[in-house]
């Protein structure tokens, strides 16, 4: 096979996939672009391993139940201690009175004992009822990461990562639902229609809670009047600015307010109120601002939950959305400044197909502009880490170690610092090179007894590394150092 075919296979794996594994270059080098299309055409298989995981609402209720139990235990323990103290106090009251000077000291000791007692009660309760949220999160991390490690090429998984970041929520606000949200709202639609993903994401309880819509209510709604509370613009603004049209695309502050009113009533069933349905999506007419509303110049008649769906359907096929999504996809996969012709082609396909994301992705991987540019993109920390583990031929991960690594690299999984998600340009991440080296060093230390650096160069990277890299690896003082240099090389980090 010619070296250019090999180079294109490597580019396909790095730019559009999860990075080469032993044997993966040879598997696709006869037709790399065809292999990418073939992966998109493969019938979508849900994560097999995820069948054992709880749904978002089940996980939410499990955590809420544990919190309630823990609180009850702590309360009981506190009561017992108070009863004991009272008994002792009664007993000492029978004894001769203490000297006045000592009494103050006693009351101080008493106060400090009370504080100790409270902390002990809380600690005992926490030990007796551990938080189930963290293990659920870690299990979700493990299954998601291993799907990326085991993918042949991994384009579909890359799309899941991209869209999950586009419609991000944060596990810092709602850990219980964070993994299940991606499986329920994002994963089923990455090769489907944008409108379906939009409806699933904005209507998901995790999103409604993350962007404060669960407590937003119309000023003229029944609850708004009775409780003197009102609107929260957060979900409406971020839907317009980040999820659909894009910032500075022509909508106004009035559109934000009007859309926020449209979305009032999109909430969830409170955890404590319903043991079987707590956490599920619920449209609550009592919170909904009554009446017709105008968004982006179009009048929407009052149709309760359907009013919001109608606005979202229109946003999903708006020309500004097509441009925004096409630009963001191309920027993520191809270049920080993508070729305008590529973005135009993708936006046109988005528009012509009514937002068919499989067709938009196909247009991207079959456009010549996606292949001609040099590998200037710096891999995101998550891409780089998974690529390193794949290159070492490993298929399993320890989620505790993995999440700790992502934290150090500044890209905590499902915990972005804002609704905008993580940026994916070089300028954002290049100053993290020092930290990457430390991670590469740590990983190489653990992998050095199983992985031969020369094998990685020949079998994983298809010998497509510069003479400088080969020389540095050849001269390294140890296998560990050789691997670290290899994983830190420009060839390995850029795509």
């Amino acid at each position, binding site marked *: 096979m010619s070296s250019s075919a090999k180079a294109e296979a490597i580019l396909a794996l790095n730019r559009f996939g999860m990075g080469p594994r032993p044997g993966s270059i040879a598997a696709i080098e006869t037709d790399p672009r065809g292999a990418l299309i073939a992966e998109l055409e493969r019938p979508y298989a849900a994560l097999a391993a995820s069948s054992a995981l709880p749904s978002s609402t089940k996980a939410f209720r499990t*955590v*809420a139940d544990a*919190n309630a139990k823990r*609180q009850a235990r702590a309360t009981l323990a506190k009561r017992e201690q108070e009863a004991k103290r009272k008994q002792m106090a009664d007993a000492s009251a029978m004894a001769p009175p203490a000297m006045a000077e000592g009494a103050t000291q006693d009351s101080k000791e008493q106060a400090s004992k009370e504080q100790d007692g409270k902390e002990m009660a809380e600690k005992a309760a926490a030990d007796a009822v551990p938080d189930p949220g963290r293990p659920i999160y870690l299990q979700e991390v493990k299954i998601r990461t291993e799907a990326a490690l085991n993918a042949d090429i991994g384009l579909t998984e890359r799309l899941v990562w991209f869209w999950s970041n586009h419609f991000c929520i*944060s596990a*810092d*606000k709602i*850990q219980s639902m964070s993994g299940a949200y991606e499986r329920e709202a994002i994963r089923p639609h990455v090769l489907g229609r944008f409108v379906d993903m939009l409806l699933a994401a904005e209507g998901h309880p995790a999103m409604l*809670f993350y962007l*404060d819509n669960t*407590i*937003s*209510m119309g000023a003229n709604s029944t609850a*708004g009047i009775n409780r003197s*509370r*009102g*609107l*929260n*613009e957060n979900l409406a*603004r971020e839907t317009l*600015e980040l999820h659909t049209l894009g*910032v*500075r695309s022509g909508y106004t*502050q009035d559109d*934000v307010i009007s859309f926020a009113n449209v979305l009032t009533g999109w909430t969830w069933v409170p*955890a*404590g109120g319903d043991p079987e349905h707590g956490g599920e999506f619920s449209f609550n007419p009592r919170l909904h601002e009554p009446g017709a509303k105008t968004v982006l110049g179009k009048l929407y008649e009052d149709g309760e939950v359907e009013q919001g769906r109608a606005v979202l359907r229109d946003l999903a096929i708006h020309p500004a959305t097509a441009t925004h999504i096409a630009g963001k996809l191309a920027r993520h996969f191809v270049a920080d400044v993508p070729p305008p012709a590529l973005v135009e082609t993708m936006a046109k396909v988005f528009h012509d197909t009514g937002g068919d994301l499989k067709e938009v992705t196909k247009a991207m991987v079959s456009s010549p502009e996606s292949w001609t540019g040099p590998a200037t993109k710096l891999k995101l920390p998550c891409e780089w880490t998974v690529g390193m583990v794949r290159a070492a031929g490993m298929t399993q991960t320890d989620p505790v170690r993995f999440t700790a690594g992502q*934290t*150090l*690299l*500044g890209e*905590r999984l499902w*915990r972005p*610092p*804002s609704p*905008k998600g993580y940026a994916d340009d*070089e*300028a954002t991440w*290049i*100053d*993290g*090179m*020092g*930290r990457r*080296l*430390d991670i590469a*060093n*740590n990983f190489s230390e653990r992998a050095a007894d199983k992985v031969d650096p020369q094998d990685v160069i020949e079998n994983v990277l298809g010998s497509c590394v*510069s003479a*400088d*890299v080969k020389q*540095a690896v050849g*001269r390294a*003082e140890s296998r560990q*150092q050789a691997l*670290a*240099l290899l994983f830190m*090389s*420009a060839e390995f*980090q850029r795509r």
Partner: protein
Amino acid sequence: MTFHRHLHSRREALIGAGALFAWTQMPKLARAEGRDPRLLVIVLRGALDGLGAVAPVGDPDWIGLRGDRALVLDGKTPALPLDAFFALNPAMPNLHRLYKAQQASIIHATATPYRERSHFDGQDVLESGVARPGAVDTGWLNRALMALASDGQVDLRGSRALGVGAVTPLVVRGQAPVMSWIPQKLLLASDDTRARLLDLYQHTDPKLAVALQARIRLAALGPAAGPDDPFADNPALPPGIARIRAYVAEVAGTAARFLAKPDGPRVGAAGFVGWDTHINEGAAAGQLANLLGALDGALAAIETNMGEAWHETVVAVITEFGRTARINGTDGTDHGQGTVAFLTGGALKGGRMIADWPGLKAAQLYEGRDLKPTTDLRAVLKGLLRDHLRVDERVLASTVFPDSADVAPMAGLVG
């Protein structure tokens, strides 16, 4: 209860994830005048509620606007008087002390030229110094340093230090070399491995070489962490606001230790997130009070760790925009316009509230909802850069803050 637990932990992590800083050395700066000035910029991301931080208690419309959420001098937690008109949030006793000692000034009803309400665009304008968002990928602080370098005041060749941070704030990004740092521990790669990798990058990828070299230079400056570094060996920190306080003080305090070193950097920037108080803002005793308290602790840590250099220091605390003048439907505030900027440091001619007060009546609010900006924040920043760092005024108007020729630098802030 569940709700508050989640909210709390989100704020906590937001601060952790976004906080880091970067700086550039400028050893020769102002030596000719016998000065060695330091400038630290702290960006509060998420939009600080200026009215919740510094209340116009003398405005007759103040109580009417915020009702029982208004900070007042005779409240349960009384606001700290600054002058006859303004009072400081009670969570900031250190800043109040510095103000009384004429080492702090506060600018009110200030904003960048940005008049929309997107955080991300707003931060872009704030940090880039360019009125149009998304126009450039460099920050005003970095361009100011480039201007000093071209003047021969700073030797950038000697200043390339190192970056460990995951994300560098835009305000210091640019051509002048930047190093960054983030307070977490890990088994580090050896000096030898680092040197080999640097050699490899120099042959294959100059950009990666620059990024890595910056870190090696910082390491050569020696450890910045003090013996009381709470992150040194024990990652287990107290939960909730105590953790935020510890983290923010640690980041700011470490920045100060670096800035105080005789051969250390002279300019730095840090970002703290979490100020987007849409729900249950709690200016007097809740969320916002906690965050302001953490910021106040950070300012105290900077003052302490700067030591003697505090007398040559200015710390500028800025945010992308303010919040709605009224409380929203969920006991918080939404995105607005005018807000405050805090300046503190021994080099300031402080003890002053600087405000061209626009008033709080409905007709006086911007678009009937936000505090109207009457002081261009660029005037403040230009004043500091001109009088503290000696950046040429024409350069300030052309390359540091392009299109700001009609915004005169504010005089008399330092001195």
